[in-house]
């Protein structure tokens, strides 16, 4: 992995983000429903509208607006939310940990479940265990996360009220935020009741997001395990008299994890921007919910901020996955 390759990738990433920001900017400028008019009382005069427009820099031509915006973004200033009258970056940073915590939880669940079911299916190939695994994979892929969410709410929140279905933590708790990750914060404070409340609140939304991803992990694990077990070194391990369990878990699985890491990494990037519906359904105060509020209230600076941050995370995750892949698989050398 050469320095040249990394530099090339970083440049590539920068131009991608530039492209994303330009497209967002243009799309948002043709949006009907003037945010300025929506902010003012109905009796406001034309003069008031013009003044406020000038205050937000919306009176200039689009390319000029873009350059001004880009300059402030370069200084780390994403502007002020029109609707919430708060710094955009501050708002985003407030919500980011909630989404990150949820997506990390979902990814962890998907990895554990997926690797377990996938490996078991290969070991018990052709039996009912294998068939059950395939069924889980097909259902996981066919039912989108928000429908899983609604099903969970119906069965585990309404019919049998076993798990909380709204918010990040019981309203009786207040967690002093240090990192913004409730699970981490409560542990630091040794607040175990707060920790368990936060954990219980996370189960259903995290599982809703995790099941489609689990299906993907099962498929990847299965297909790559079936590939790997044909290789010579697995045969050698078998000839050495190692038990089937050791062969599959230690030798074969280790290699199957390379494609799994790649795919889960990419999916993590997608999930960060795909929590919208699950956050709405579970009243989870994360970025997705913030984004939808911003879009509905036509909050241009806020939409731009959220979209750019999510795109940044997406390309960043992809870069890390690529580098990791090259690192784990020395057969591949990039120029």
């Amino acid at each position: 992995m050469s320095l040249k390759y990394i530099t090339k990738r970083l440049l590539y990433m920068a131009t991608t983000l530039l492209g994303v920001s330009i497209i967002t900017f243009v799309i948002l400028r043709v949006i009907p429903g003037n945010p300025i008019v929506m902010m003012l009382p109905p009796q406001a005069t034309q003069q008031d509208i013009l003044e406020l427009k000038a205050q937000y820099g919306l009176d200039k031509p689009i390319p000029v607006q873009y350059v001004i915006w880009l300059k402030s973004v370069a200084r780390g200033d994403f502007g002020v939310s029109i609707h919430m009258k708060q710094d955009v970056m501050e708002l985003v940073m407030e919500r980011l940990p909630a989404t990150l915590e949820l997506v990390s939880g979902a990814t962890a669940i998907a990895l554990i479940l997926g690797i377990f079911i996938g490996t078991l299916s290969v070991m018990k190939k052709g039996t009912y265990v294998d068939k059950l695994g395939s069924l889980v994979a097909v259902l996981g892929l066919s039912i989108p996360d928000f429908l899983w969410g609604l099903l969970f709410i119906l069965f585990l929140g309404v019919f049998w009220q076993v798990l909380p279905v709204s918010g990040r933590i019981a309203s009786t708790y207040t967690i002093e935020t240090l990192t913004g990750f409730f699970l981490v914060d409560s542990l630091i404070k040794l607040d175990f009741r707060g920790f368990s409340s936060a954990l219980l609140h996370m189960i259903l939304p995290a599982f809703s997001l995790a099941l489609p991803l689990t299906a993907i992990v099962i498929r990847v694990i299965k297909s790559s395990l079936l590939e790997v077990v044909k290789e010579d070194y697995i045969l050698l391990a078998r000839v050495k008299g190692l038990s089937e369990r050791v062969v599959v878990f230690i030798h074969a699985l280790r290699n199957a994890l390379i494609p799994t890491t790649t795919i889960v990494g990419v999916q993590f990037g997608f999930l960060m921007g795909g929590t919208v519906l699950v956050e709405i359904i579970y009243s989870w105060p994360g970025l997705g919910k913030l984004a939808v509020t911003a879009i509905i209230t036509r909050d241009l600076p806020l939409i731009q901020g959220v979209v750019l941050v999510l795109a940044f995370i997406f390309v960043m995750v992809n870069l890390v996955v690529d580098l990791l892949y090259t690192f784990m698989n020395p057969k591949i050398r990039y120029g």
Partner: protein
Amino acid sequence: MIEVYREERERFQKVKRFLSNGKVLFGGVVLLLLIFTAITAPYIAPHDPNEQDITATKTPPFWMEGGDTNHVLGTDSLGRDVFSRILYGSRVAMFVAVVGTFFAGLIGVILALLAGYYRGAVDNIISRFVDIWISFPPILLSIVLMAVLGTGLTNVALAIILVDWTRFCRVIRGEVFNIRERDFILAAKAEALGNFRIIVKEVFPNIIPLLLVLVTLEMGIAIIVEAILSFVGLSVEASIPAWGQMIALGRLYIHQAWWIMVFPMMCIIMSVLGLNLLGDGLREVLDPRLKVMGMK
């Protein structure tokens, strides 16, 4: 005469091969059922989907206590017949699935053929654009687009096209890359056939199996996206019954009347499941290579 007979026989065997695959059979039946209800909804629906009966709101399905065979699947919070709304809802689902998928596929395939065949600068430009486009979170992009375009059935299809053409473009470009290296393309070039003719007559027919699989998957995705947009209130007009809208409404009454939400949910799940299995099955039948690789 014998030639004709053999052709007939081969065609028959091909059909048999498709039908002997359980996934293709199941998915095909689901798809046919969807098309059938979408076309015949006005004739088979027992009620007008928008007819309100405030004396009979939240009537449970007929087999439950207080149920009524007049409303087999019960009524919603405004007393509208859930079964009739579901039948009509299939029209929205089919419209976005067919129109959205067709044009997303059209744009994606054309760009993929150009990028994969000409390579070099053409490929660079198209691929860069695709990379930028997929860096947008797709759900957010579709919601933003709906905010820009305004609600309505055609706009939902348009949003799906604008978001999802990249799916076709990415996958098919790779396939075109491989096909272009094959002997028959080189042979066609040696015969000095024009590029356009080679693309249409030689390359395109070879991507059809892959395209079919992508089409079935995309139809499922389009149905889901419509439901998502309905859920945030940015899909079709309120006067048009759609599954996503019914789910969003039913969620508000989840404690009193689960059936308002559950039946349209089942419809979405069954449709997407059917289309996914159809895609899976088609892949198995059309591309035996994958079976050997253990990707079953």
